[in-house]
């Protein structure tokens, strides 16, 4: 046994060296027009070797270390073996806590920096996207790798309409969502008889088609140059800029007689995103306990049985696809308005992958989990700016660890049961 342990530990240490040395120990440096390969400073190289030694020692004594760790952990959690709370009591507490968090989120932006509010808006956009994709992937069980296409449709609807017809944010919001839903419906028809991997590939292709179309249809979309000057949302005709851009509008700071501040706009956008995200969550939550939600889950659980009971596969899958796309359209409109400028660069496959990662990390089908994961996935890279070069490395490692230790997600789905009350 020890010999085997030793071999295994040695193997792990060598792998560590092989992976870490080229990434950390070698630098590409530009000298004039030439790129030269130089070794890193001694400190980095020493750290790489130290890391390999640590891996070696840990693997060698792994059983002992894990054993004592587990002992310590079980000592800590011995109190948690109480009876679980009654289902309805728990639901009540949960809804109170959630309401509290939403109220806090309403007041929070007035006390923090502009950058934080901006980031929070982005988080909320991802929350909307992930909740929408959660319907498709988590509830209906359809793997959609091209979800970002619907996000792009929403964003470009607003950008193009405002450019060509001068439409406002509030009119564009439902339009963008409906148009995205229409795209979902049209794509869904030919695609939904496919299953699993095949469906994933076709949706992936669709996502790319939309992006390439936006990139090349220069006369309409401006191609890679994107579309700028997308207007900010207004509050009952009040604009948030220093000067009023449109005839007949007033500006927010003049109406209320306060000094102009760039923060007003950021906070307003944040509040819009918050309201829309809460709206999205509530609507989808209701859907989950309606016949349509039950049909999604039934089809995911056993398609053949569902069909034998008179559920039309196409209709049920299409509804999931369309509703998911609808909320992506919402998010897209908010995104366009927040950025003021959009280009096909914002809608690459990586976006789809990140949204999917949020859903998987959060726990398929679980709304709270998805919200938590959206926060984590958006904020972690910002916090990790210090080591920006290794950001994706850290992100990847976090994903791998997560899948090893908690494959069911941060907060696995607890289904909202419909209870049968026994009354005689």
């Amino acid at each position, binding site marked *: 046994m020890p010999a085997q342990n030793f071999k295994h530990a040695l193997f792990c240490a060598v792998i560590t060296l092989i992976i870490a040395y080229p990434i950390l120990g070698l630098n590409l440096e530009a000298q004039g027009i030439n790129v030269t390969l130089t070794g890193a400073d001694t400190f980095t190289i020493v750290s790489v070797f130290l890391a390999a030694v640590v891996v070696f020692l840990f693997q060698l004594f792994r059983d002992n270390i894990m054993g004592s760790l587990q002992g310590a952990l079980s000592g800590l959690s011995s109190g948690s073996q109480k009876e679980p709370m009654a289902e309805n009591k728990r639901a009540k507490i949960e809804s109170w806590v959630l309401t509290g968090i939403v109220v806090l989120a309403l007041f929070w932006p007035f006390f923090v920096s502009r950058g934080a509010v901006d980031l929070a808006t982005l988080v909320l956009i991802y929350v909307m996207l992930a909740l929408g994709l959660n319907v498709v992937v988590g509830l209906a069980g359809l793997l959609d790798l091209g979800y970002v296409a619907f996000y792009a449709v929403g964003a470009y609807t607003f950008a193009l309409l405002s450019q060509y017809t001068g439409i406002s944010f509030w009119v564009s919001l439902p339009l963008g969502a409906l148009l995205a839903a229409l795209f979902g419906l049209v794509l869904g028809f030919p695609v939904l008889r496919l299953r699993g991997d095949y469906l994933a590939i076709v949706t992936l292709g669709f996502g790319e088609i939309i992006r390439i179309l936006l990139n090349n249809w220069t006369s309409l979309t401006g191609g890679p140059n994107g579309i700028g000057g997308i207007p900010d949302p207004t509050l009952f005709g009040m604009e948030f800029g220093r000067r009023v851009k449109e005839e007949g509008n007033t500006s927010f700071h003049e109406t209320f007689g306060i000094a102009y501040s760039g923060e007003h706009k950021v906070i307003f956008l944040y509040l819009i995103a918050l309201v829309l995200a809460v709206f999205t969550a509530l*609507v989808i939550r*209701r*859907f989950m306990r*309606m*016949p*349509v939600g*039950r*049909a999604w*889950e*039934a089809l995911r*659980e*056993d398609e*053949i*049985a*569902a*069909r*034998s*009971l*008179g*559920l*039309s*596969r196409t209709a049920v899958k299409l509804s999931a696809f369309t509703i998911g796309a609808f909320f992506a359209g919402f998010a897209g409109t908010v995104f366009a308005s927040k950025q003021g400028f959009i280009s096909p660069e914002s809608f690459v496959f990586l976006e789809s992958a990140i949204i999917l990662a949020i859903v998987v990390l959060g726990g398929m089908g679980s709304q709270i989990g998805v919200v938590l994961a959206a926060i984590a996935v958006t904020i972690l890279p910002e916090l990790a700016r210090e080591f920006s070069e290794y950001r994706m490395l850290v992100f990847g490692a976090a994903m791998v660890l997560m899948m090893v230790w908690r494959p069911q997600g941060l907060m696995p789905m607890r*289904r909202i*049961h*419909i*209870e*049968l009350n*026994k009354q005689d």
Partner: protein
Amino acid sequence: MLDVKNLSMRFGGLLAVDQVSLDVKEREIVSVIGPNGAGKTTVFNCISGFYKPTGGTISFQGEEVQGKPDYQISRLGMVRTFQHVRLFNQMTVVENLLVAQHRHLNTNLIAGLLKTPGYRDREQKALDRAAYWLDRVGLLELANREAGNLAYGQQRRLEIARCMVTEPNLLMLDEPAAGLNPAETKDLNQLIVSLKEDYCVSVLLIEHDMSLVMDISDRINVINQGRPLASGTPDEIRQNDDVIKAYLGEA
């Protein structure tokens, strides 16, 4: 009610079902028996629309249904169970029954979001009907359990209840007694007979368990190697030489 004529099903070079005819009248229990691999389940799959038969006609209540998609056939009032239980395992017992009533419910999204009175009314009716059938098959106590956690016999009964809440005219059971012990089989017997007597449902049954078949069937069709071998009342079948040969082998 159900009239199958000269049904054939060919998979490539294999003729799995060859010229099988059978019919089910109102309030009748008809069985299909035959050795393993005889093509019984294939006949079922053709009738319920999972396969498109390559030949023959199937008419249900005067309407030709061969080649129609499965979910439309089920909506006409012809519902089936499966040889291997197929429940929605992660959903509760009640929810399984609610899914089955999908087409009786108000599926309008707006109505559901606003909880209009019409929507609530139908939802409540569906719950009541689910409760009634759970009580009928003796699963009311387990209504809020996950379906996947039920014992095998209970899952079988739940599957039948799930068919019954759709208010079918014809119930097709694919080996309902498979994996049940003798006591459970006897209960199942009574349940099937009462479905016929009390709810005016016709039953088409595939079964291996001879005691079940002989006791409750009005008529029996025997299939062997895809071909019809014999048909008649249980007594006639019992005395049919061909059937004895097919089941027991030649001496």
